[in-house]
């Protein structure tokens, strides 16, 4: 049974703060993804990684960076949080086409 965990379910941060969102998967998957989900927009891809120390920009990478130092862990970093980054953040991992998602982190930036 695939398990993807995210470090926080809810997070409240202030504008300008640096924010770290952690994601860990236990299935030895090569591929990991970060999405944000907003009403009416579905899931939009921020960054993804197909291997350790490898990262690729998704559709909306501006204002975000990522780190993949170990295969099982993929971190999303908001360098300087802004109110328009208030959203639900979803991490996923996959071996092939099917992605498995974590429970999500609801981030509120004040």
């Amino acid at each position, binding site marked *: 049974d695939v398990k993807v965990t995210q470090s926080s379910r809810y997070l409240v941060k202030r504008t300008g703060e640096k924010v770290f969102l952690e994601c860990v998967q236990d299935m030895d998957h090569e591929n990991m993804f970060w999405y944000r989900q907003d009403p009416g*927009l*579905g899931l939009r891809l921020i960054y993804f990684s197909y291997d350790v120390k490898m990262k690729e920009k998704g559709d909306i990478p501006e204002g975000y960076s990522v780190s993949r130092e170990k295969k099982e862990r993929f971190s999303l970093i908001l360098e300087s949080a802004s109110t328009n980054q208030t959203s639900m953040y979803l991490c996923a991992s996959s071996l092939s086409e099917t992605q498995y998602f974590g429970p999500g982190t609801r981030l509120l930036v004040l």
Partner: protein
Amino acid sequence: DQQVKQNSPSLSVQEGRISILNCDYTNSMFDYFLWYKKYPAEGPTFLISISSIKDKNEDGRFTVFLNKSAKHLSLHIVPSQPGDSAVYFCAASARDNDMRFGAGTRLTVKP
């Protein structure tokens, strides 16, 4: 540019009846399609998928139909149950490329 579109933001169905959720895509390179189900405060969970070499895939109460010429797929749930009430996301991917998701359709199944 939204390559995967779910034009109905919501759908309400009576328990026991059929639910039909629709999805359209624009990229002819997509060759694998998935449906995910999402409950509030949880991550999406994989429901069913279909490869472009097929036009139908069935799993219990859930059937996905693919019409490649129309670039359209649909998810049929029959019979619908109150526990099916959730947001359903359609997703599509092309070989060696990342996945694109639709905006989601909120299904409400009324007892």
